[in-house]
């Protein structure tokens, strides 16, 4: 933040910034001076889904509705391309600049988003520092695919399987894992029946941590509580990645890469040990 404070303040640099989406909240909290943040979304201070929750605690919340946003008299609104389009259009119509940030699926998207928000805030130097740290930490956490290489199913609530071109696909790839979705020819978010998962028998099932109002009986989680999945996992690995690391593509994904890379290498060593035992027989 010191570097940001010292950087020349451009006349055009916005002073009252509102973010109405969890993912733009992260970028704003990461890149702007705290006194310039007028409001972030109500999800920003939820530790379960927001990586920068600690920074969001004293900042007024909004529920992403145009009227609420107007109350803060913002000179810049950050929204996701995923945000309700009518809200963005309405705000623009009322003369408020809205910066729409695309969803980050790949490392390059994460970097571009940091750059474009930093530029809009007039904090390019802070942006460059954040990027540099991210690149270094990401390179350190990533591993190249080991041999043997594990197949992972990124499988979450409501039978959603994450493809390679999603943020989860990106962190699994950085951990050297092969994505089950690729083997099945699926991209993006697909609906994968539990049956197919059982049939495919991936080495890893990577799920979230039920943290946002987690109730055992909730239907969304029925696939993850099914006895057939429990049976599949008896001799396979389940890795739980905190939900906040799946929520938005940002520098926080380094943590997910670390968890998965460690699990992957452990699995590889076990496989090699098993193979050696088989050879000796």
């Amino acid at each position: 933040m010191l570097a940001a404070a010292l950087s020349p303040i451009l006349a055009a640099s916005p002073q009252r910034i509102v973010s109405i989406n969890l993912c733009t909240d992260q970028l704003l909290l990461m890149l702007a001076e705290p006194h310039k943040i007028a409001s972030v979304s109500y999800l920003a201070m939820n530790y379960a889904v927001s990586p920068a929750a600690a920074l969001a605690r004293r900042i007024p919340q909004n529920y992403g509705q145009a009227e609420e946003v107007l109350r803060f008299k913002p000179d810049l609104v950050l929204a996701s391309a995923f945000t309700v389009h009518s809200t963005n259009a309405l705000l623009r119509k009322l003369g408020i600049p809205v910066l729409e940030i695309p969803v980050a699926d790949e490392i390059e998207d994460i970097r571009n988003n940091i750059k474009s928000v930093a530029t809009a805030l007039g904090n390019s130097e802070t942006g460059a520092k954040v990027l540099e740290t991210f690149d270094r930490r990401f390179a350190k956490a990533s591993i190249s695919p080991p041999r043997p290489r594990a197949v992972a199913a990124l499988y979450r609530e409501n039978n959603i399987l994450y493809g390679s071109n999603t943020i989860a696909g990106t962190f699994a790839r950085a951990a050297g894992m092969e994505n089950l979705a690729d083997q099945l020819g699926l991209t993006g978010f697909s609906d994968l029946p539990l049956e197919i998962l059982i049939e495919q028998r991936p080495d890893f099932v990577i799920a979230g941590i039920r943290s946002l109002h987690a109730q055992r009986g909730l239907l969304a989680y029925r696939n993850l509580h099914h006895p057939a999945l429990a049976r599949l996992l008896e001799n396979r690995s389940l890795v739980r990645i905190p939900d906040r690391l799946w929520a938005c593509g940002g520098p926080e994904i380094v943590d997910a890469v670390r968890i998965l890379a460690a699990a992957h290498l452990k699995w590889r060593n076990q496989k090699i040990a098993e193979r050696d035992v088989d050879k000796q027989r």
Partner: protein
Amino acid sequence: MSISSAEHRGAEHGHRQSILFGVLIFGVLAAFLVSLLVGPSKVGWTELIALLADPDVAPAAKQILIEIRTPRALLGFLVGGSLGLAGAALQGYLRNPLAEPGLIGVSASASLGAVLTLHTGLAGLFALALPLGGIAGAILAVFVMQALAGAAGGTLRLILAGIALSSFASALTSLALNLAPDPFAAMEMMFWMMGSLSDRSFEHLELAGPFILCGWALLSVLGRSLDALTLGEDTARTLGIDLNWVRSTLVLGVALSIGAATAVAGSISFVGLVVPHLLRRFVGSRPSTLLYASALGGSCLTLIADISVRLIAPGPELKLGVLTAMVGAPFFLLLIMQTRGDWQ
């Protein structure tokens, strides 16, 4: 009419009925078998035969057949049977061809009861809270319908009260899901309103099965009383039918079977309406025979619908309730056209 020809007609009638029950039982068994063989994975009859021959067959096929498809097929049988049975019992008791658990709001209220136990955390405390919540919702709905549009209420009143109760219960379900900080609220709403049997396990069967069977037991003893009721309440009373007993048995039977079924499968409409209508002509309009025939018919129809949702859409699975509504709603309209005369 001479005695011999009456006997002859009776024998012919009995013969037709045994054919009907034979066909229905065969249909249920066939649909159950197909239900085990159809699914998104390639597991089919070769794997099933291999499993029957050697229980230590490939673990994937075994898990898919035993832990995923078997509970689903069994639940389809129980849920469908409940819908058919409850539909026939309600139509017989209210002497109204449009009475049906889905249309008169029993299913929607049972959904509400189940959702409330889930989102207050009660279902997390003890597992039986879920079916009990569904049953409580269903009991309440049957009582409300009884009060608003009992036998004297007529068709129009029954349908209007049913619409009001259904909409109200659905709105409260949505409200409960909206208020709970649930990221999947929209999907959960769709499930509770449209019903589905996908990815159910033996746990669901153990939760709902006993209640459903108790409900069946209660409803199946109502046959004689419902037959007597076709002659009107006064006549039924002179025949020694205790109407209070009939009512409480019916309410409890419908609530147990539909409440428990809805708590695990969501609200599935129109099965309870269509099945008794399709079968009525084959049983000579006798409510007692219609009860058993409708239970089998409901099971068969629900299993077929559940097989269809797996076959029709290759991507995200169609909701079971969508399919039953798509088949049931036009049928319902047809019925309304036919009964238009009675409303004045």
